């Protein structure tokens, strides 16, 4: 770590965030010939340390003898203030070097509310915010992650962007940067080369064209560049490297446990869900390989929990046997197994019963909508009957606490759908009274978020409800759910609004983002840090009509600012899905049913790959 921070540590909250020496941290020698990359997480250590993607990249990069990776996180506001007062720049955790001294600084784009932190971290590091202001001595600033699929609001600040899976393309990037560095080639030329790497997008080489304030199209500045940038996707996860040593933090952080990715992608096809579109197709990891990985990570970390992660872990073909094998192997030494994303429709109560730990925490279901009609619109293929059966089974098996996730403001929503949410919560409570075997009183927690239209989803054209309308819907539900045994939790509507603005944003939003940072916005996803007033001022100062971005319905004939950033799912499919949504017609999961021709398996040499199928090969 940076020794200049040591005197500050007694003065800040959770100082262990800033110290290094964690077990398995890599302190590689800072030699001239190595390509140095900082993995920059645009939030605090406590949040960023749980991010699996960075663990994977950290292992891959440090696994190369000609490269090194170090971590950097956003300092919390108390530490930031002290650093700014004393003129201490942002440094990496391992060697404590200035961020500006790395060859590459890579940010992950997990959600839109982290964008201000990216700019703030560049400021703290003394790296010019804008690509155009950086010169030969500055690092190349890149980003990847889900929000890369509409990175336009950040286009002015990122030298290049990676679309899709990073495990393979990172090697191509490092090779290229290493070679060019040795040749002493200019940054512009390195970027010219990078722009030819499949999956790499160099925003400054693309020019958006507007007419009358509306986005028309985006054009490459050089004829050799593709008009559309395709994501990277690997056909077989088994061929991808997976870290066997996780850095073990001292401080308390989220997801501090052994994590293995059991499958990637989800084809259930929920029409609001971006992850379900951009990570297609489904690829499962071999269970034997997973068990090996778990054994190695447990041995190298000493973690007491194994988490089987994915977008929908209950869908993994051999989930029952995998969970059972892991429990048998680790129960004796106090290591538990957890499934972070179980879905109602794939959920087997027996499966959760296997995992004793779940008993304490309660079970989570995500019906998302309150009526069958609306669930058909969003393609959440769960029936009232399914819900009833599974909730009853859960109460019978001894659970007493059920958490339900819903979304308000979904396309075509009416008052009936809101009532449906309330009714469902009450029904679950009454099923609890009827079927519980636990001595504890049944409890239902209803968590309500607001619909955010996301690029590359069938709902990308749909405007978000106004803040007033969302608030009144929240209030309505709050009234209807005021009942002993029911708890109600809400997402701040301001968060959802900003998410919608930036998720459907174009390059012009960069100015507003920059202004917001100047005004003091950062840590926007933190309820107590969000300064919505300053955000509104930033939009006003830069002449951005934020409401227009978030709330208007877009005509499907209109050009979209993100259409050149392709996750492999065709626009025709999305439109087809949007039309089916309006008719309330569900689409089946292509894993177990017909291919719905989303396009991904036609655009790439990939296919759904389930473990049983791959065994038969």
């Amino acid at each position: 770590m940076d020794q200049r921070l040591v005197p500050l540590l007694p003065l800040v909250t959770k100082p262990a965030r800033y110290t290094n020496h964690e077990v398995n941290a890599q302190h590689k020698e800072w030699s001239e010939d190595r390509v140095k990359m900082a993995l920059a997480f645009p939030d605090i250590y406590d949040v960023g340390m749980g991010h699996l993607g960075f663990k994977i990249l950290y292992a891959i990069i440090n696994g190369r003898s000609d490269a090194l990776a170090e971590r950097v996180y956003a300092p919390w506001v108390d530490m930031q203030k002290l650093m700014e007062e004393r003129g201490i720049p942002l440094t990496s955790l391992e060697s404590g070097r200035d961020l500006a001294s790395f060859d590459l600084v890579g940010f992950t784009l997990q959600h839109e509310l982290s964008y201000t932190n990216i700019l703030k971290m560049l400021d703290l590091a003394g790296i010019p915010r804008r690509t155009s202001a950086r010169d030969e001595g500055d690092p190349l600033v890149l980003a990847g992650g889900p929000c890369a699929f509409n990175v336009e609001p950040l286009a002015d600040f990122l030298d290049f962007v990676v679309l899709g899976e990073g495990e393979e393309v990172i090697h191509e990037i490092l090779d290229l940067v290493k070679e060019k560095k040795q040749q002493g080639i200019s940054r512009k030329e390195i970027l010219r080369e990078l722009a030819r790497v499949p999956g790499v997008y160099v925003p400054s080489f693309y020019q958006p064209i507007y007419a009358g304030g509306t986005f028309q199209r985006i054009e490459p500045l050089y004829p050799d560049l593709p008009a559309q940038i395709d994501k990277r996707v690997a056909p077989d996860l088994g061929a991808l490297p997976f870290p066997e040593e996780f850095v073990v933090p001292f401080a308390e952080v989220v997801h501090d446990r052994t994590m293995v990715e059991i499958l990637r992608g989800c084809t259930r096809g929920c029409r609001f869900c971006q992850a379900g579109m951009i990570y297609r197709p489904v690829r499962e990891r071999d269970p034997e390989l997973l068990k090996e990985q778990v054994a190695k990570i447990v041995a190298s970390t000493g973690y007491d929990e194994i988490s089987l992660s994915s977008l929908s872990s209950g869908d993994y073909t051999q989930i029952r046997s995998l969970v059972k094998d892991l429990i048998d192997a680790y129960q004796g030494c106090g290591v538990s197994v957890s499934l972070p994303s179980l879905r109602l429709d794939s959920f087997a109560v027996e499966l959760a019963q296997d995992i004793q730990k779940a008993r304490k925490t309660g079970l989570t279901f995500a019906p998302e909508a309150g009526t069958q009609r609306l669930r058909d619109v969003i393609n959440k293929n769960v029936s009232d009957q399914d819900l009833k059966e599974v909730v009853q089974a859960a109460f019978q098996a001894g659970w007493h606490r059920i958490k339900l996730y819903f979304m308000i403001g979904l396309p075509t929503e009416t008052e009936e759908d809101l009532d449906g949410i309330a009714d469902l919560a009450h029904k679950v409570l009454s099923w609890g009274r009827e079927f519980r075997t636990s001595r504890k009183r049944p409890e239902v927690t209803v968590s309500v978020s607001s619909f955010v239209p996301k690029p590359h989803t069938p709902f990308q054209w749909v405007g978000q409800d106004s803040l007033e309308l969302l608030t009144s819907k929240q209030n309505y539900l709050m009234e209807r759910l005021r009942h002993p045994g029911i708890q109600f939790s809400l997402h701040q509507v301001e968060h959802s609004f900003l998410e919608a603005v930036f998720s459907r944003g174009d390059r012009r939003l960069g100015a507003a983002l920059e202004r917001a940072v100047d005004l003091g916005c950062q840590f926007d996803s933190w309820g107590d840090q969000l300064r919505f007033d300053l955000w509104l001022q930033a939009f006003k100062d830069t002449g951005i009509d934020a409401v227009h971005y978030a709330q208007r319905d877009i005509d499907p004939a209109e050009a979209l600012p993100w259409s050149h950033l392709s996750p492999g799912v065709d626009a025709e499919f999305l439109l087809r899905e949007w039309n089916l949504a309006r008719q309330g017609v569900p689409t089946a999961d292509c894993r177990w049913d017909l291919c719905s021709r989303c396009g991904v398996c036609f655009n790439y040499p990939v296919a759904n790959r389930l473990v049983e199928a791959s065994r038969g090969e």
Partner: protein
Amino acid sequence: MSKTMRFQFRKGPEVRFLSHLDLVRAMERAVRRAGLPMAYSEGFSPRPIMSYSFALPVGVLSEAEYADFRLTEELEPAEFMELFNRHLPPGFRVLQAAHLPQGAPSLMSGINAALWKLHLPVAAREEIQERWRRLQAEDSFVVERQTKKGTRQVDLLPLVYGLPAVLETGDAVEVHCLAALGSEANLRVEELALLLGFNPAEALVTRMGQFKKEGSHYRPPLGNRGFTWTES
């Protein structure tokens, strides 16, 4: 032979800013990495059975932290030290270990005093000594203490047993202080700072020892037979 291993360990500068909870978590993980034959608690989430001496404040170093680990197999202390040290994070080090005899007092009940070493980069030796002489002449030194139950008046003087050494080391002063530690009587590090008039943020504090004080005799929970000391 008993299956509880008592050991003394160091908390060095690398891990100085860990809270007690962080420390316990780090120990649990090291135990698992080392594959120590630990006894686990019953219940839904079994935890290794271990207990610690009084929690060290964040930012304070120690040469004398103590822990008891309940094991399921007999293990030679030397073997335990070798194995565990190999898997402890940098900054932690087991300094000595021994089997705990059946019926020996727990760490909590076997400790009531601490020896602190304060490294004060700004203070002058004479000032500290003078201040301490003046304090000894006083009847009391009452401060407000924040506790979970509210604020309380505490007289700090009876909690300090003495300053066995005040040394000059280069441009700093090193003060060694024996004081009450534990649930019955306890002197906090920041109270010691108030008493001796230094800024706790600037001092490097090390816990050098933990003892059972009986009269003027101080006996550590492990190893040598201790020492006798009375403030003149």
